[in-house]
């Protein structure tokens, strides 16, 4: 993920910008913003390529402003990740200690704990009582403190007084092979006073379906598909269509022959969130040209072509919506702030749905309820 800083913390009218920064390729898991004074201090970003693992924010287990518990599925098992911010009064740790919730399969607990202790910071000479509370919680979750592969501070003081500290911690599953292997990146703290931490957690292989079969419109493959389907329909023998079993047979034959023609003519298409309705063959050529030459001039020509093409495409779209479909108000959504919904499991009859079967039953009973009334 590329870290970016926003150019201003206020909009043009001088109103402070509040909320979660959203990126098209990342799902945001965060609680709703209650008030400007109660701003968010923890959030989780999940790459959309992992969205098939069904990440859910679990507010029902820990309903706390500074705790984000996110669940996901891997090979039919539920796993959890926990992101925490504990303020200088350690209120989150006290909450966790009092809640006494037992969660199995918690892969990682991480966050800013605001505790200096000589267990994880050798430059600090003391041991605090609150650290014992933290270790009790860690034991309860069957976790272990992970020591970094590179011993550097995680928080950098504004003043060059040397009071840098280690307060950002990672706890991993007890006995896990990833323990004591995480990295601290002091060069990646940008305008924040915290360094970035990274850890690789290996999960079981899961077939993440990133491709689908498709036939492009107005393509040669489409013309061929239509031609072959016509031939397949014509070859169907309907002379002995006299009983139910024969009718079933003919309809199934029709379906299977269309399906086999489809399989021969369709090709794998990668699923992305980027709309490229304005893209054409000319850009393919221009892009390939750049890839072979790697010349800056060619790149600039390509980018300017794409820019003007995009502008023309969206101008036409705006005209179509505003004039032909007579719905200029539909365009208002284009200029509003695009808020990505937070991920939370669907609730039905007070229970959260974690399994595909539960989800199916929920939708089935919600939308078919009227049938049985």
């Amino acid at each position, binding site marked *: 993920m590329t870290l970016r800083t926003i150019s201003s913390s206020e909009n043009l009218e001088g109103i402070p910008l509040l909320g979660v920064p959203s990126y098209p390729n990342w799902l945001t898991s965060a609680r*709703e913003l209650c008030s400007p004074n109660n701003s968010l201090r923890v959030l989780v970003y999940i790459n959309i390529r992992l969205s098939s693992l069904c990440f859910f924010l679990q507010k029902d287990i820990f309903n706390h402003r500074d705790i984000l518990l996110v669940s996901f599925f891997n090979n039919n098992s539920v796993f959890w990740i926990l992101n925490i911010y504990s303020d200088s009064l350690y209120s989150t740790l006290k909450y966790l200690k009092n809640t006494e919730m037992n969660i199995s399969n918690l892969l990682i607990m991480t966050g800013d704990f605001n505790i200096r202790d000589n267990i994880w910071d050798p430059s600090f000479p003391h041991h605090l009582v609150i650290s014992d509370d933290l270790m009790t919680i860690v034991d309860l979750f069957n976790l272990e403190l992970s020591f970094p592969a590179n011993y550097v501070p995680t928080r950098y003081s504004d003043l060059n007084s040397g009071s840098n500290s280690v307060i950002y911690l990672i706890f991993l599953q007890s006995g896990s092979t990833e323990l004591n292997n995480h990295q601290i990146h002091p060069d990646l703290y940008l305008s924040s006073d915290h360094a970035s931490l990274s850890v690789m957690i290996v999960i079981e292989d899961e077939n993440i379906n990133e491709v689908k079969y498709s036939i492009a*419109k107005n393509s040669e493959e*489409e013309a061929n*598909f*239509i031609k072959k*389907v*016509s031939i397949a*329909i*014509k070859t*169907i023998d*309907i002379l002995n*269509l006299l*009983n*139910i079993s024969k*009718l*079933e047979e*003919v*309809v*199934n034959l*029709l*379906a299977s022959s*269309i*399906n086999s023609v*489809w399989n021969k003519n*369709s090709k794998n298409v990668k699923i992305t969130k980027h709309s490229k309705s304005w893209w054409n063959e000319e850009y393919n050529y221009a892009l390939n040209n750049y890839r072979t030459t790697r010349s800056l001039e060619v790149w600039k020509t390509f980018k300017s072509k794409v820019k003007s093409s995009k502008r023309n495409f969206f101008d036409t779209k705006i005209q179509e919506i505003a004039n032909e479909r007579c719905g200029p108000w539909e365009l208002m*959504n284009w200029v509003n702030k695009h808020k990505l*919904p*937070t*991920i*939370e*499991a*669907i*609730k*039905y009859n007070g229970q*959260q749905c974690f399994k595909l079967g539960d989800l199916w039953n*929920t*939708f089935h009973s*919600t*939308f078919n309820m*009227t049938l049985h*009334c």
Partner: protein
Amino acid sequence: LLGQCHILDEIGDKLTLPWPAFLKGEFRLAIINCNNSSALGPNKLLWSHLKIIFKDDDCLNIIINIANMCIELGYWPSHFKRSTTIVISKPNKKSYNLPKAFRPIVLLNIVCKLIKKVIGERLQFNITSNKFIHPSQLGGLKFKSTIDAGVALTHIIHTGWIKNLSTSTLAFDIA
């Protein structure tokens, strides 16, 4: 009249209307206004594909034969009942943790949809031309709309005013 007819009496045999075989024109007329950008159903065909395929009389005749046999045998093939359900999130919802924030759509086999369309057109024609349906039924009928319902309601109110009467309306939704 009440003495002669009871609610539990069986309805006597009525005159049945003949169901002639489907015509190519009916299918071609039904397919004209189908949306080319509809999503792909379980049989991988789009309306735009079917429009081109059915320009060929031989292809259309085969589908018409299958449709005729469905009517004749009184049987709907199991493949026509297959569907793909897609769950779409409704836009601009504050929270997506309730099932009502989503809307499932069902994608059907379009050959089956076309046959159903032609049958629907015939039924509409027969019930309106033979006056099988009550004239105050406005929903689900061609050339009838909410405007008709509004005009009927205002007419009743105006008639009441002439007779110095007030009109009360009870509206209810049967789901």
